[in-house]
C-alpha cells in the first residue's frame, strides 16, 4: 500500500502539454492528417470544399471505402484480402454483361453471392488448411479475374442496370446519397465490431491467433465471417463502381486491393493491431481520394501523385509501427 502511495506521490503532476500529447497519442494519424489536408484545401483551393465538389469526391471514394472496411477487418485478424480486385471484376461482369438474363435484383443477389463465395473459399483455405492469406487471396483473384477475361472474349461487359445508375446518381439537394450510405454502413459496422462479442473475438485473434485457437475461441467461424464480409463489401464496391460509371469493364477497380491496404495502414490498423478501429481506415480512404484530387488540382501528373502517396504510406507505416511498439 505504502509503495503505491509513494508511486502516486512521486508521479509528477500532468502538464497541459503531456495531456495534449497523450490525447493525440491515442488518435490515429489519419485524423490530424486529413484535417491538415482540408485546411490546405481551404486556403489554396477553397472550391474543393464546396458541397457539390466535396461530395462528388466522396462519391469517388465509396468503392475504396467499402473495400478498405473489409481489408481492415481481415488485417485485424492477421489475415489479408487481395481477392477484392477479382470479386469486383466478377461482380461487375455479372451486373453488366447480359451473360445472365435476369431482373436487376437477381443480378445484384448473384453479384453479392459471388463475393460471399470467394470470401468463403478464402476463409476455408486460411482457417482450415492454414494457408497463407496472401497466396490464397491472390490465387482466387487470378481465378475469378481470369474467368471474366475468358468470358469477355465471348460477351463484353456493357451498360449498368439503370436502377444502380439511378441509385449512384441520386442526390438530396446537392448531396449525393452514395457516400452518405457508405459512411452509414461504416458506422454500423464500427458499432457492431466495437460493442459485440465478435469484436472481442477479432481483437483476441489479432493479438495472438494461436492462443485464440488453443483457448477455444471460434477461430474458424470468425475467419469465415470476416472474409465473407470482405467479399460482400467488394461486391458492393463493384455495384458502386458500375453505378457511378454507367458501364462495366474487365479492368475495373484493379488498384483497389493495394490502395485499400495503404488506407488501412494510414487509418491506424495493421496486422493484429486495430487501434484505428473501422472508422480510421474509412477516413483514410476518403483522405487518399481527396489527396489525389488535390494533387490533380495542382496539375501533378499521375506518376508524381503515386510517388507522394507512397511516401505518405511509408511515413504513416513507420509512425504506426513506432506507436505500436511503445504501447
Amino acid at each position, binding site marked *: 500500500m505504502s509503495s503505491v502511495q509513494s508511486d502516486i506521490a512521486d508521479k509528477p503532476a500532468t502538464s497541459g502539454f503531456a495531456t495534449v500529447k497523450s490525447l493525440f497519442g491515442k488518435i490515429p494519424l489519419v485524423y490530424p492528417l486529413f484535417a491538415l489536408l482540408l485546411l490546405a484545401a481551404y486556403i489554396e483551393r477553397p472550391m474543393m470544399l464546396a458541397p457539390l465538389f466535396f461530395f462528388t469526391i466522396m462519391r469517388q471514394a465509396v468503392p475504396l471505402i467499402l473495400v478498405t472496411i473489409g481489408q481492415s477487418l481481415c488485417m485485424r485478424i492477421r489475415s489479408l484480402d487481395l481477392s477484392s480486385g477479382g470479386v469486383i471484376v466478377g461482380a461487375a461482369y455479372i451486373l453488366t454483361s447480359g451473360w445472365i438474363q435476369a431482373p436487376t435484383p437477381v443480378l445484384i443477389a448473384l453479384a453479392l453471392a459471388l463475393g460471399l463465395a470467394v470470401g468463403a473459399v478464402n476463409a476455408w483455405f486460411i482457417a482450415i488448411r492454414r494457408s497463407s492469406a496472401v497466396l490464397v487471396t491472390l490465387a482466387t483473384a*487470378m481465378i475469378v479475374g481470369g474467368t471474366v477475361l*475468358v468470358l469477355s*472474349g465471348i460477351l463484353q461487359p456493357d451498360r449498368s442496370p439503370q436502377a444502380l445508375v439511378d441509385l449512384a446518381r441520386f442526390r438530396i439537394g446537392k448531396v449525393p446519397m452514395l457516400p452518405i450510405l457508405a459512411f452509414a454502413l461504416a458506422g454500423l459496422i464500427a458499432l457492431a465490431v466495437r460493442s459485440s462479442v465478435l469484436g472481442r473475438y477479432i481483437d483476441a485473434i489479432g493479438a495472438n491467433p*494461436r492462443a485464440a485457437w488453443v483457448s477455444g475461441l471460434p477461430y474458424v467461424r470468425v475467419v469465415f465471417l470476416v472474409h465473407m464480409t470482405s467479399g460482400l463489401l467488394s461486391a458492393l464496391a463493384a455495384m458502386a463502381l458500375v453505378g457511378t460509371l454507367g458501364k462495366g469493364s474487365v479492368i475495373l477497380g484493379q488498384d483497389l486491393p493495394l490502395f485499400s*491496404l*495503404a488506407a488501412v495502414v494510414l487509418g491506424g490498423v495493421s496486422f493484429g493491431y486495430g487501434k484505428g478501429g473501422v472508422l480510421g481506415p474509412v477516413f483514410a480512404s476518403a483522405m487518399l481520394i481527396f489527396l489525389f484530387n488535390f494533387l490533380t488540382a495542382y496539375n501533378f501528373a*499521375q506518376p508524381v501523385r503515386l510517388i507522394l502517396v507512397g511516401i505518405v504510406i511509408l511515413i504513416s507505416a513507420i509512425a504506426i509501427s513506432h506507436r505500436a511498439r511503445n504501447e
Partner: protein
Amino acid sequence: MKAVIAHLSGNAPSRRDRLNPFVILLPLSIAILLAVTTADFLKTENLLNLFNQAAPLLILSLGLLFPVLTGGIDISNGALLSVCAGFLVTYDTGTGLAFAGGAALLTGILNGVGVALLKVHPIVMTLGVMIIFLGLAPIVLPASGGDVSESLIYLVRGDLFGIPISLLWCVIASLIVWVVVSRSAFGTRVYAIGANEEAVWLSGVNSHIAIIMCYVISSVSAFFAAVYIVGRVGSSTATIGEPLILSSITAVAIGGVLLSGGVGSVGGVICGVTALTFINNGMNHLSVDPFLQQVITGCILLVAIGFQRREEIGV
C-alpha cells in the same frame, strides 16, 4: 509412396528445405503430360527456349527466397525491375548499370531497415516502396523503347562454347544462391530468423543485419533480372516488371517455401519456376487462351498451397 501418403495426411516429418513429393512431382508430371500431348515440347529448340523464358523469373524468385525465408516478403521488386530496366535503356551502359545497381542497393537497404529496425510489416513496407517505384518508372522511361548496347545483348543472347548464355545465367544464379543458403553461416542464420527471430536475437546474433542483407539480395536480384530482360528484349516499358511480382510469389509458393518463414530451398524454387514455365510454355503449344492460362495457374497455386498445411496461422 509412404512419403506421399504421410505428406498428404499431414504426418510428414518437418524439413526446412520442404522438398516434399508434391514440389518435385508437379513439374515432372506437367513435363510428362506436355511430352505426350504436344509434338514440339521435347524439341531441342523449345527446351533451350525454356531457359530464356525461365531465367528472369528464376533470378527474381531466387532473390525473393531470402526475405521469405526470414518470414518477410518483398512485393517491390517487380516495380524496381521496371525502374532498373528504364535506367538501362535510357543511359549508356556504364551509367545505366551504375544508376540501376545503385537504385537496387538503396531499395534493399530501405526495405531492410524498415522491416528490421523500424519494425514495419514487410508487406506494408514493400508496398509503399512499390507504389513509389510505380510512379518513378514512367518518369525514368516515359515512352516504350530505348537503346541497349550490343555487349548487354550478347550477355543474354550469346553462347559460350556452344552453350546458350541464358542457361549459364540460370545455373550460376542457382549455384550462388544454393551456396549462400545451404552452405554458409549466413544461410543458417536466415533459416533461424525465419523459425524464431526473437530466439536468434536473444542468443546474441544480430538478426537486423541479416534481415537487411536479405532485402538487399532481393533488390539486387531485381537488378540482374532487369539486365537479363533488357538484353533479351532489346528495349523496355515502364511496366515491364509488373507481371513478375505475382509470378515470382507464385513460383516460390509452389516450390514449397513457406511465407511464414524458416522453410524453403533453392531446389524448391527451381521446381516452382520450372512448373510455372512448363505450364506457360505448354499452354502456348496447346494454343490455350492466355486468360485461361491465368485461371489454370491460379487453380494450381490454390491446390499447391492447399496441400502444404502450415503450423502457423496468418499472412
